[in-house]
């Protein structure tokens, strides 16, 4: 598959090799991530899926080196843009907000409540382009807001987070992540706090963005439906390890490991539905008419 689609060719944007993360807690040292290896290439979405405590979010925070220094010990290697951020903490600072951006989990608490959307998006833009003036930042920021389908972006530039719904805030956070013009997005449960219809619009936005720009994505989710829809490849995680890895289709349609099968079996089925019909009318009536 990768050979046929040049969009996913080239060197990996992210390459984690035997990554281990130990967390120092009140109850001793916990190995939250226990030797995982994976890559994300251009145009690809790679998803880590698992239940609470499996280590998926710790992995995401670890590859960005956003875990508290001194309380999290990383080993192995994580190469982003050719630099190993495990060996070199400065490399993490150099790539964050430039080569790679994070879309955080909870849109309600990720933005500062006392600064306008424009102020915060402007900061992200000026981090990427230190010479940018305020006017330039606003023009570029308004453009980004329009790109994530915020209506009346020029008016909304001066609004505060509490004036937006959860779905709009998550799209503003995506705009903020895009301000860095990243090659790679790390999305930590980006839609878990959202209603289903809002989730659909945010996922659609992310997928459209990838189709248009070829951005790579590392997605963290507990939702198999989301994982199946957005992913090229899925790693099923449990107790800090990958129990199974494969294409999205293979993981869902032909799971090899008992744990993957258990997870799939536990998802309440919604089943198929009459999507093209107009409600309760019988398809037979259409046949009779034609």
């Amino acid at each position, binding site marked *: 598959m990768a050979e046929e689609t040049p969009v996913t060719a080239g060197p990996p944007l992210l390459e984690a090799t035997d990554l281990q993360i130990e967390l120092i807690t009140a109850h001793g040292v916990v190995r939250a991530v226990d030797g995982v290896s994976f890559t994300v290439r251009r145009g690809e979405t790679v998803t880590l899926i698992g239940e609470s405590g499996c280590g998926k979010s710790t992995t995401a925070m670890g590859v960005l080196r956003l875990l508290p220094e001194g309380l999290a010990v990383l080993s192995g290697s994580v190469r982003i843009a050719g630099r190993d951020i495990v060996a070199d903490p400065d490399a993490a600072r150099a790539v964050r907000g430039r080569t790679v951006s994070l879309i955080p989990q909870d849109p309600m608490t990720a933005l500062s409540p006392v600064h306008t959307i424009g102020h915060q998006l402007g900061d992200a833009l000026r981090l990427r382009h230190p010479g940018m003036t305020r006017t330039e930042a606003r023009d570029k920021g308004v453009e980004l807001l329009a790109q994530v389908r915020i209506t009346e972006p020029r008016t909304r530039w001066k609004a505060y987070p509490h004036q937006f719904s959860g779905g709009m805030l998550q799209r503003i956070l995506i705009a903020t992540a895009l301000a860095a013009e990243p090659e790679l997005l790390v999305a930590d449960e980006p839609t878990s706090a959202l209603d*289903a219809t809002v989730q659909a619009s945010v996922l659609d936005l992310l997928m459209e963005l990838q189709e248009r720009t070829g951005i790579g994505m590392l997605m963290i989710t*507990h939702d198999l439906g989301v994982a*199946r*829809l957005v992913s090229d490849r899925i790693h099923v995680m449990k107790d800090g390890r990958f129990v199974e890895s494969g294409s999205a289709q293979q993981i869902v349609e032909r799971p090899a490991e008992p744990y993957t099968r258990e997870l799939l079996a536990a998802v*309440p089925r919604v089943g198929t539905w009459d999507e093209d019909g107009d409600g309760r009318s019988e398809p037979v009536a259409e046949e009779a008419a034609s």
Partner: protein
Amino acid sequence: MTELPTATGPVLLSVEDLVVEYATSRGPFRAVDHVNFRIPQGGSLAIVGESGCGKSTLARALVRLLKPESGRIILDGTDIAQLPERRLRPLRRHVQMVFQDPYGSLDPHLTAQQIVAEPLHVHGLSDRAQRARRAAELLDQVGLPPSALDRRPPEFSGGQRQRIGIARALASRPDLLVCDEATSALDVSVQAQVLDLLSELQKDTGIAYLVIAHHLGVVREISTELLVMRAGRIIESGPTATVLTSPSDPYTRALRRAALDPTTIRGVKPRHLLTSAPEGTPT
């Protein structure tokens, strides 16, 4: 307004023209707007909808944690909508609630056994030894081991806490259990276990359920009748299977489209499955 769900047995609870409002600085906000439905004895009705649609407000009004503005809540022939607390109290045991948050809805200072025994005391079982015995039976019924009796909420996982919440609700021998997103904070494997438990309890005891949920798969597993709520109103209703396989209201169809069942998705990154989903309504 679509027709009322058909009651298969004698009506246990009948909600008629219910209106619930909250006072805000800009005047009253109508969270539940002229809602009608019935639950038969031993029936299982679910209400789905997204944040802010009024489904939790409705649940809270039914157990009279809130007082409705107008309308009737007829429980076994008595309208409890406006009853004062004094007259409500003897009726409260008939309708019990399991709350959404398994971390916030149990007293952390009490043991599991004490938590479950408390409603027994409130409902007049004065013998301490009998209460303890009955609490132990209930905890066994929801699948917790005897070793759980003397442990306190912080020592339990989310799924175990939800089992304690269910045992506490069952202690009053209610006719109706209102489950407000009782499994949505749980991991899928734990959610599946709690849903199985609820199905078994209904089979064994004939208890009726009102299930509030946002997940269509959960609703499909636990209910036979379904109401779809939006902006305080019921926009579609009917047998759960019918509403889910051939939804007629555009909003129900949008909800249905947005429900991602991994087993029915085909192809690689099929974004087209999402494209007709509408934007969320900004609040």
